């Protein structure tokens, strides 16, 4: 077991330490009423301590579980630490989960109280409260709209703090008792239970100890040389391990400042004001920003557009080499410097990325074009591979060793091996202690000697020595003629086109591969505007013959590229269609972290899947959809199916020659 300093082996201990050593430095900021409010480490300790003592007065004890529901607000982060100080275990829940999903997690975790953001979350919890006999008080942050609610059940965050503060002044020994409780905390106490959104079945509660998370965070900080001068913005779901580690544990370990946005939809503006230095985002964020840039440039004047295109060309040629410290001729450097002044700098600044030292992408494969674009612009974008079960870090790319198609080398203290079936296994100090109340599932994943099955198929790239992930191990299937079929590999190739938002490849135990496609409304909408394509709704745009033509040309290119790779050449796309609605987590089609739930989608759209394989040229489909408030409706459409030609492996050379 990795040794950590006994006095700094839990988050509350780190908090007290930071308040003492760097007490005046900013710990958290939040924009409220248009103004950034800052809490120093010393002030944050004061806030957390008051809340923690208040929680103790409400009856929260060592070993109790309590829920955290809401978006990234300082008070919700404080609540986590406040509970941990008493030895209780926070269970963050996805704030956009519908009441059903929430009920399962809250009941399974046996939470005895919940700290929630606002009325919306209060409503959800109250709706399922009958099924949660152990649940006591609901503590809310935002009082708006809660005036007429049941006062016995609800109490505001500030009121709990007031209880704590009164206790602190009335009872001389209170402070000493609280500090003793913190000192009682041990490295192997549970730090958090994180429910994974799970691409299949019910979510599982991953138990992580303070040792798991703190050692992982310490290694990560050392790997990228992060210190107390970093600024990060917390905008990813609290229930996701990434946010827990980046915005909470790593911040406490390094002493850096975490900034909470004003509202979920102001993140870009807020990031621009803060100038984050360390960032983490799933590929889709980088994709969206690039799409937005390209769409805006398409609307710009001719001179601006020409200049942009020219300097992007310069960046593609020299940018990555300069970033990696390679030799670049003086002319290239000069041109790049001019480009930085007029193009790259302003673009990065537009999205608040000017001060980025280290940016990571993970969770899904990123399009090589997108990845290289950002690197060429001078942003140090890297890839990492992680899991909740590992306290995030399994592999990461060291500075200067960056490839678009690998996920990096094993992180410090992590061992990796590849099983005979091609599955990736790892062992590290960050390995979780088990799934909460689910010994069977734990045994499936965690071996007795500490190895964890990731469920991902991958291999080490001979050239770079870095890990490459192909797909979920269980998703890699075969066509009827036993050609290897890796759906995600095909889907990713498609998704690298800005016009395609999602793709679902079907082919396991079928005669050929077919694909259902979701168009990207921003990109295709802008294309439609420029090409005089008239449409009234997403559905109409998706069904437009010219949109089909455009997507068909993308599919054709993907087929050509597949034909060039011997392993997958047999799994080219024979038929495709464009879905009439966007895939949505509210309809259970994506997970909360926006991953495809392929099995569910294939069931839901079975008439379309049937149409693929019985040769029809169109199919009728009606699907139930869930609106944001849980209200249900039905969307019906007739969806056309297109046939595509495939390329024989040998024909590739001829195409090239032509």
């Amino acid at each position, binding site marked *: 077991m990795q040794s950590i300093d006994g006095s700094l082996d839990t988050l509350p201990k780190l908090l007290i330490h930071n308040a003492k050593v760097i007490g005046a430095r900013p710990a958290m900021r939040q924009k409220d009423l*248009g*103004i950034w409010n800052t809490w120093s480490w010393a002030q944050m300790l004061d806030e957390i301590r008051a809340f923690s003592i208040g929680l103790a007065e409400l009856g929260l004890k060592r070993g109790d579980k309590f829920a955290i529901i809401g978006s990234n607000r300082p008070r919700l982060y404080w609540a986590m630490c406040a509970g941990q100080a008493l030895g209780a275990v926070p269970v963050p829940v996805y704030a956009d989960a519908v009441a059903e999903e929430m009920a399962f997690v809250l009941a399974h975790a046996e939470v005895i109280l919940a700290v929630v953001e606002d009325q919306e979350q209060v409503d959800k919890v109250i709706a399922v409260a009958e099924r949660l006999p152990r649940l006591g008080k609901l503590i809310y942050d935002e009082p708006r*709209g809660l*005036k007429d609610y049941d006062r016995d059940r609800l109490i505001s965050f500030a009121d709990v703090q007031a209880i704590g503060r009164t206790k602190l002044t009335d009872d001389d020994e209170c402070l000493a008792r609280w500090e003793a409780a913190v000192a009682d905390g041990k490295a192997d106490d549970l730090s958090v239970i994180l429910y994974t959104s799970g691409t299949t079945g019910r979510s599982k509660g991953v138990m992580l100890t303070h040792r798991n998370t703190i050692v992982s965070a310490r290694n990560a900080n050392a790997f990228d040389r992060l210190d107390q001068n970093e600024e990060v913005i917390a905008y990813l779901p609290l229930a996701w391990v990434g946010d827990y580690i980046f915005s909470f544990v790593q911040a406490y370990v390094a002493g850096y400042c975490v900034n909470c946005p004003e509202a979920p939809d*102001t993140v870009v503006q807020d990031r621009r004001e803060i100038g984050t230095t360390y960032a983490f985002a799933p590929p889709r964020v980088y994709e969206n920003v690039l799409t937005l840039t390209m769409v805006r440039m398409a609307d710009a004047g001719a001179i601006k557009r020409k200049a942009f295109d020219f300097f992007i060309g310069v960046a593609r040629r020299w940018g990555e080499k300069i970033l990696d410290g390679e030799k670049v001729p003086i002319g290239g450097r000069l041109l790049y410097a001019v480009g930085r002044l007029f193009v790259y700098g302003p673009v990065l600044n537009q999205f608040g990325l000017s001060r980025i030292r280290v940016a990571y992408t993970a969770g899904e494969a990123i399009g090589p074009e997108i990845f290289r674009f950002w690197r060429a612009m001078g942003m140090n974008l890297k890839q990492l591979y992680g899991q909740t079960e590992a306290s995030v870090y399994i592999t990461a790319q060291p500075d200067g060793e960056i490839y678009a198609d690998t996920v990096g080398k094993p992180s410090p203290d992590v061992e990796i091996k590849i099983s005979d079936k091609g599955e990736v296994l790892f062992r590290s100090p960050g390995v979780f202690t088990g799934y909460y109340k689910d010994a069977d599932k734990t045994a499936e994943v965690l071996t007795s000697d500490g190895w964890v099955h990731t469920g991902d198929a991958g291999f080490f790239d001979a050239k770079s020595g870095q890990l490459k992930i192909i797909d979920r191990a269980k998703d890699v299937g075969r066509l009827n003629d036993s050609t290897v079929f890796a759906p995600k590999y095909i889907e990713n190739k498609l998704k690298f086109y800005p016009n395609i938002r999602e793709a679902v490849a079907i082919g396991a135990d079928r005669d050929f591969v077919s694909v259902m496609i979701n168009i990207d409304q921003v990109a295709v909408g802008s294309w439609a505007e420029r090409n005089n394509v008239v449409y009234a709704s997403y559905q109409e745009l998706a069904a437009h013959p010219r949109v089909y033509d455009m997507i068909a040309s993308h599919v054709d290119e993907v087929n050509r590229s597949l034909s060039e790779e011997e392993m997958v050449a047999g799994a080219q796309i024979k038929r495709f269609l464009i879905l009439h609605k966007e895939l949505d987590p509210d309809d259970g089609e994506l997970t909360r972290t926006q991953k495809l739930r392929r099995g569910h989608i294939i069931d839901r759209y079975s008439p379309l899947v049937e149409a693929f394989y019985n040769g029809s040229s169109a199919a009728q489909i009606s699907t139930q959809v869930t*609106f944001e408030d849980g209200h249900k409706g039905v969307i019906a459409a007739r969806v056309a199916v297109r046939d595509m030609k495939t390329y024989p492996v040998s024909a590739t050379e001829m195409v090239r020659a032509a």
Partner: protein
Amino acid sequence: MRAPSSGDTALGEVLLAVEDVSLSFGGVRALTAVSFDIRKGEIRAIIGPNGAGKTSMLNVVNGFYQPQSGRITFKGEARNSMRPYAAARGGIARTFQNLALFRGMTTLDNILAGRSLKMRRGFFWQVIRHGPALTEEVEHRRRVEEIIDFLEIAAIRKIPVGRLPYGLQKRVELGRALAMEPDLLLLDEPMAGMNLEEKEDMSRFIIDVNQQYGTTIALIEHDMGVVMDLSDRVVVLDYGRKIADAVPDEVKKDENVIRAYLGQPHGVSA
């Protein structure tokens, strides 16, 4: 979660009373001897088929139109007609059926414009922007920021409203009306042209305004579901006459109202 208020008894004193108001444009009688009242703290709906005189009624209340006869009592003060400026000063704010925003100005500036009646310092002081004028401006900005937070439009704070989608423009307009801190808020079809989700958001804001700020609200709306859910009492107009005035459940059952909405011929054979 909204406590149902039944009939007249649960409500406060009369804030605004309209008595026998008639309005005509040349030969067209827009309103004929209409009387009703709005009580403090309620949400009062004015409904009716197209051309029933709903918007004319609102325009009379806030002084856009001068009725030919009748009396309006606002906060205990009776008058034959109001001037829009006096109505605004007196605490009546409104939004419009067709948006009336400053399209080139940002959300923030539009809402700040709603504060102009509350600004105490004159042009001279504002140009200097120092001392008391600055203190005042900071205070106004704070109020505006509270409204921005309340209406969840922080993301569009600095965007010119002309570039915003319709649903958001409606929200900005509500924000500007709120900035006046009105005693009576008149909303002319706040949900026209909105999709279901936008309507639900808007309904929530209307309820929140009513509950949190205690603002009395009179609204015209076509979406019956919305009207029945939101309002405490409903006035029904048809061809410029009041045909019903009751709580939503009674109005729903009222014979005259059903006839008006189902399009029974009105004496004139079609």
